């Protein structure tokens, strides 16, 4: 697992961004960027290469689901791994996210170990031919 990969955390709550950043640091990820909503996330993604997006679902301006669709529709960003964070695992939302091409999803609250496991699964899938 590449611990130096660049991870973008997208969440409108600064506290939650800090929490996720701390959890990532606990499992060895230090190269972390932050954005407060989907619109600013797209700006960051256009400016630099990101290896993994960790985005909240519920955000103002552009939701995580809208960001996912925008990323998947973009020729340059389309294959960027995308981990969706939700406060609930409602079946309809999960199905919609899977259809839109989410790499995996994680339900809040979660531990550093669970987050690490989700990231590992995404990255393993990426390496599988």
């Amino acid at each position, binding site marked *: 697992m590449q611990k130096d990969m660049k991870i973008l955390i997208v969440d409108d709550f*600064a506290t939650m961004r800090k929490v996720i950043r*701390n959890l990532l640091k606990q499992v060895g990820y230090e190269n972390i960027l932050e954005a407060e909503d989907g619109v600013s996330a797209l700006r960051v993604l256009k400016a630099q290469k990101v290896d993994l997006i960790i985005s909240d679902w*519920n955000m103002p301006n552009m939701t995580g689901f809208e960001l996912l669709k925008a990323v998947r529709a973009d020729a340059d960003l389309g294959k960027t791994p995308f981990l969706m964070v939700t*406060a*609930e695992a409602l079946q309809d939302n999960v199905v919609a996210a899977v259809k839109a091409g989410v790499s995996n999803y994680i339900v*809040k609250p*979660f531990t550093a170990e669970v987050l690490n496991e989700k990231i590992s699964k995404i990255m393993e899938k990426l390496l599988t031919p």
Partner: protein
Amino acid sequence: MNVKFINPFLEGTVSVIKTMAFVEPRAGKPFLKRDSAAHGDVSGIIGLTGAAVGSVALSFSSGAILRIVSNMLGEEIKDMNGDIKDAVGELTNMVSGAARKRLEAEGYSIMAAIPTVVSGSKHSITHVLGGPSIIIPFEIDTGPFVIDVCLSEPGKR
């Protein structure tokens, strides 16, 4: 109020606080609340619709929330600042999500609105249904907090 609604919120609260703040809250005996006074210094309130309608609030004493947020962020927070309000909104969202997940497993599909946060030593909680509500008290070493549940099944009030 259907008592089936209480346990998912109790369990959801314990699970969220334990996972996010690494402390295990001790639950006290639930009781009925008939007024709008908040049992805490800062509260997050969230509206719910669907198989149950109403609202749920999480109210924290300053002692409890300062410890919870300090643990969440891995740094000592000493004042009731913006981080605290932010965290209370997020915790309310998570407790509601955790409880709704449990309720969904029992056949109750419930949607949530965006939480709002109110603070001040004598603030009030205005429930969507007006009240009364059920309070589940909790305690951690640095102070108490409560979850204040006012829910009803449509047509059964």
